[in-house]
């Protein structure tokens, strides 16, 4: 008989690195999933991807300077991300280019610049860590960084919440009553960058977007209110992280991708069985209501 305790709890009871991985990825989910809901609702789902590419060269430069240093790689990633977000916003505001074009141009420049710089140094950098993370090797400092990032992200989101919602629904109205529109926009982009940078230590730059976005998409099928979506997204993020870590332990698969695959499974299940516009519910023969 399969013992659920052995299957789900023992790996964490036995190994400290498993517990660290669990705590780290839960912190990431709590910080990143609410951000993902806003990105999705603002039709900016691909902005996370663009930002992840923008961050990569910064992190790689940090690595060139100081090796696998948490501080340098984090600072490099943050700076590269902020610069790209700011320049893209600036070009959107003062030229004819729309936001997607401006963002795409700068992340591509950043990415190409990063690759050139790395190759100029002539060192054979092992960027696998940056690309795919190392969720099973989180040390104390990294855990602390993930926890701080999640806390800062949640608190900032609470502060920005109202103007951010209004900036999404009715930007022209926000402009007539307040000038907090651009503050909330840039503040929000800064939170995207912060969460992606925190995420790359565990999941890598490319996959940390996955934990941010995929639970948000799944949550769309379980709630039609903003609060509900944020709750469901965070919950699905935490569940995917836990499940992914356990599965990767037993199946010997790389942990980061397994976490995102778990989120992907939740997403597919949500499309099928979701309470709000799930496919099964839509196909069931149900009589319409009177009003």
């Amino acid at each position, binding site marked *: 008989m399969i013992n659920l305790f052995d299957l789900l709890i023992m790996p964490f009871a036995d190994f400290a690195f498993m517990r660290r991985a669990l705590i780290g990825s839960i912190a990431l989910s709590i910080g990143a999933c609410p951000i993902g809901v806003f990105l999705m*609702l603002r039709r900016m789902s691909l902005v996370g991807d663009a930002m992840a590419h923008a961050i990569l060269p910064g992190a790689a430069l940090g690595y060139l300077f100081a090796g696998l240093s948490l501080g340098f790689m984090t600072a490099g990633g943050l700076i590269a991300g902020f610069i790209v977000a700011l320049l893209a916003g600036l070009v959107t505001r003062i030229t004819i280019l729309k936001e997607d074009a401006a963002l795409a141009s700068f992340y591509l420049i950043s990415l190409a610049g990063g690759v050139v710089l790395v190759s100029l140094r002539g060192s054979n950098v092992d960027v696998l860590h940056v690309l795919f993370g190392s969720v099973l090797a989180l040390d104390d400092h990294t855990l602390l960084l993930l926890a701080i990032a999640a806390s800062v992200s949640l608190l900032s989101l609470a*502060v*920005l*919440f*109202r*103007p951010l*919602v*209004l900036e*999404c*629904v*009715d*930007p*022209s*109205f926000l*402009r*007539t*009553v*307040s000038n*907090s529109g651009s503050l909330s926009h840039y503040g929000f982009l800064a939170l995207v960058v912060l969460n992606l940078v925190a995420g790359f230590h565990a999941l890598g730059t490319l996959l940390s977007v996955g934990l941010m976005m995929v639970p948000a998409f799944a949550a769309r099928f379980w709630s*039609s*209110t*903003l609060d509900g*979506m944020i709750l469901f997204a965070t919950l699905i993020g935490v569940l995917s992280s836990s499940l992914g870590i356990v599965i990767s332990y037993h199946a010997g698969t790389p942990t980061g991708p397994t976490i995102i695959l778990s989120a992907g499974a939740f997403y597919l299940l949500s499309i099928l069985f979701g309470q709000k516009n799930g496919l099964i519910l839509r196909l069931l023969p149900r009589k319409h209501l009177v009003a």
Partner: protein
Amino acid sequence: MTKPRASFVQLKDVTLGYDRHPAVHHVSGCFEAGSLTAVIGPNGAGKSTLLKAIAGTLKPLDGTIVMGTDSPRLAYLPQLAELDRDFPISVEDLVGTGFWRKIGSFRRYSSNDRLLIDETLEKVGLVGFNKRLLGTLSGGQLQRVLFARLMVQDAEIILIDEPFAAIDTKTVSDLIGLVQHWHHEGRTIIAVLHDMSLVAEFFPDCLLLARECVAWGATSHILTPDHLAKARTMIEANDPHADTCERAA
């Protein structure tokens, strides 16, 4: 509700436009405090542009716009296009954003504010719609919600841009009733409209715009065949080879 102070809006040789091409050219005049004015004219006459400038979201290329009080409470309802109707926000939350000046990003609604939201929804004929999401409303219902928010804003100057486009007659007559009520309360109202019969029946004053001010005054004097014919011959805006304007400012 406190009696709103009235405020005038004076245009002093105002030129508005985009990328140096004027859309509204050297317009002067005054929307008197407590007046109810319809802004009419052909498409591309600069009506919406004028409203944007008064609302403060577009900077004049030339001239100034002066208002009766230093920072008058101003409410602006642009055309529907800019609203994201798919965003999951409830009717009462959207109407509540009308309190922004009072509660900003952080303060709570008072119980009075909540009461006022309920009362206002009743006035626009949407009792019980509080928790409905924006995406479930019809076009007419959405316009009622936006009128409710205008009322919550309790503004001295109200700007509405084509509020009755694609809306059924029942809704139009309800909303016109609200506009008249605001007028009786002494608010200054400026509305961009296309329906001349509405203008003739309900709007005492009228500004006929065709990039320049064709005529401005009592509606009965403005809606003449001569004026309307003149408005139709307006010069096309945005001629790429236009010379710089040398008219004295």
